């Protein structure tokens, strides 16, 4: 057995140029330290799936030129305004965008989790979200009568990447109520996790923590990165760094400002 706990750069090795990378929504544990490390490594041509939305993580990767295809239902900085790199990349056509809707992504990951080729979903019919997705299908519900319903194909990313409060030495990861991380790991071929800290006990043997634990069975590698979601929040641990987000929104509004941000917060510093 190779060690599951390793350095950040070692942990990120499975995330190759051109791979399909899944990351969670901005409030569920975005692996921001890992994202900065990937940018430093010069990763490119990613197909990024944000399950189901993203904020700074997608914007930074887009701005740094790492993304070829973006599949998500929304990117914004929330209260801090529009996501500047996302917006300009869409307007200039430098990123291929697959617009979707939150429950569609959840359903597609669940299909992969269950090993079925598709999942049905209500809604969507008559929307341009559906009209733009040639990879989705509409069938007549075989249990109904003249009842069209959308089928969505299973989505198995090459790698799932997220940040969580803690892991134990076997690579079991406590994610609490952020269970989309568990579905993501089940759906992904490999899962890479950064954590605040290593838990010395066995999470699977703890009668309360086990309920919020992703088994190490599904985990490829774990790296310890304290405040690894910064400047985004980690539920129950720390809030978003509002001052930093405002600074990002201000700087990233112009290319020079974004370059300045990258230099100061990504290339020169390993973490905050």
């Amino acid at each position, binding site marked *: 057995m190779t060690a599951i706990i390793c350095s950040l750069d070692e942990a990120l090795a499975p995330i190759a140029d051109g791979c399909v990378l899944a990351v969670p929504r901005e409030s569920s544990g975005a692996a921001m330290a890992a994202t900065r490390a990937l940018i430093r490594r010069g990763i490119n041509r990613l197909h990024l799936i944000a399950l189901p939305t993203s904020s700074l993580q997608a914007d930074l990767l887009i701005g740094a030129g790492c993304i070829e295809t973006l599949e998500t239902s929304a990117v914004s900085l929330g*209260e801090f305004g529009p996501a500047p790199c996302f917006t300009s990349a869409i307007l200039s056509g430098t990123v291929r965008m697959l617009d979707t809707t939150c429950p569609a992504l959840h359903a597609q990951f669940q299909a992969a989790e269950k090993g079925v080729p598709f999942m049905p979903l209500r809604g969507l*019919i008559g929307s341009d979200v559906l009209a733009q997705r040639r990879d989705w299908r509409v069938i007549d519900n075989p249990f109904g009568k003249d009842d069209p319903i959308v089928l969505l194909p299973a989505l198995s990313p090459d790698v799932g990447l997220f940040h969580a409060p803690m892991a134990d030495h076997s690579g079991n990861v406590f994610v609490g109520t952020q269970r989309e991380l568990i579905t993501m790991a089940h759906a992904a071929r490999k899962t890479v996790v950064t954590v605040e800290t290593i838990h010395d006990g066995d999470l699977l043997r703890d009668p309360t923590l086990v309920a919020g634990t992703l088994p190490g069975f599904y985990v490829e590698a774990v790296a310890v990165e304290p405040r690894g979601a910064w400047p985004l929040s980690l539920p129950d641990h720390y809030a978003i760094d509002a001052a930093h987000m405002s600074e990002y929104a201000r700087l990233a509004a112009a290319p020079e400002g974004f370059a300045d941000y990258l230099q100061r917060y990504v290339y020169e510093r390993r973490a905050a």
Partner: protein
Amino acid sequence: MYAMSVGAASPIPATAALLARERGGGRPYVSLLGSRAHTFFTDGARELFDCAGQGRVDVFFLSGGQIDGAGNINLVSIGDYARPKARFPGSFGSAYLYYVVPKVILFRVEHSRRTLVPKVDFVSAPGGSADHVFRPGGPIALVTSLCLFAFDRQHRRFRLQSVHPGHSVDEVIENTGFAFDQPAYIPVTPAPSTETLRLMRSRVAPMLAEVYPQFAQSVFGATACAR
């Protein structure tokens, strides 16, 4: 048991939902997306959508970069989708929740011909569907900075319900890009009572600050509290 749920980037709906819960002594159940303190969901990010699919989410709120007179909403882009002139964040859960939540309340602070248009450029979610399409949900109202519209699902049209204090029907007409029904008598929207304002300021605002710190601070001067 029914619930009000509030999605992303929705500080005003969050205020309304928390206010309703305060008035109801803890009911209806309220879930704010992104909140740990104000949610009853424990099954990850998909539970809101599953719960709505079960018919258990009674009320949801949606907005749009554009909203048209048939209740269609556009959260994606202006102009041709392939070469847009402006881009919004994206459709979020609208392309699903608009269909399955019985009472969807549309909100858009900016009431202008730029936001309330004859026809949206991109349909994130349509205001109505063909009869054979499964659709227990849809819009019931649209709230703006000027007025309250009700939505008539049968005719797929808005009807002006009330105009906010300090504004006029003419102002509404002038700033609305779509046609809407105008009853003979259009009342003034009642201002919030002293008690409502007290609840919002003392109880609701500190709760809002968890998810919407800037909004809570700038509107109410409030900072986060434990529930």
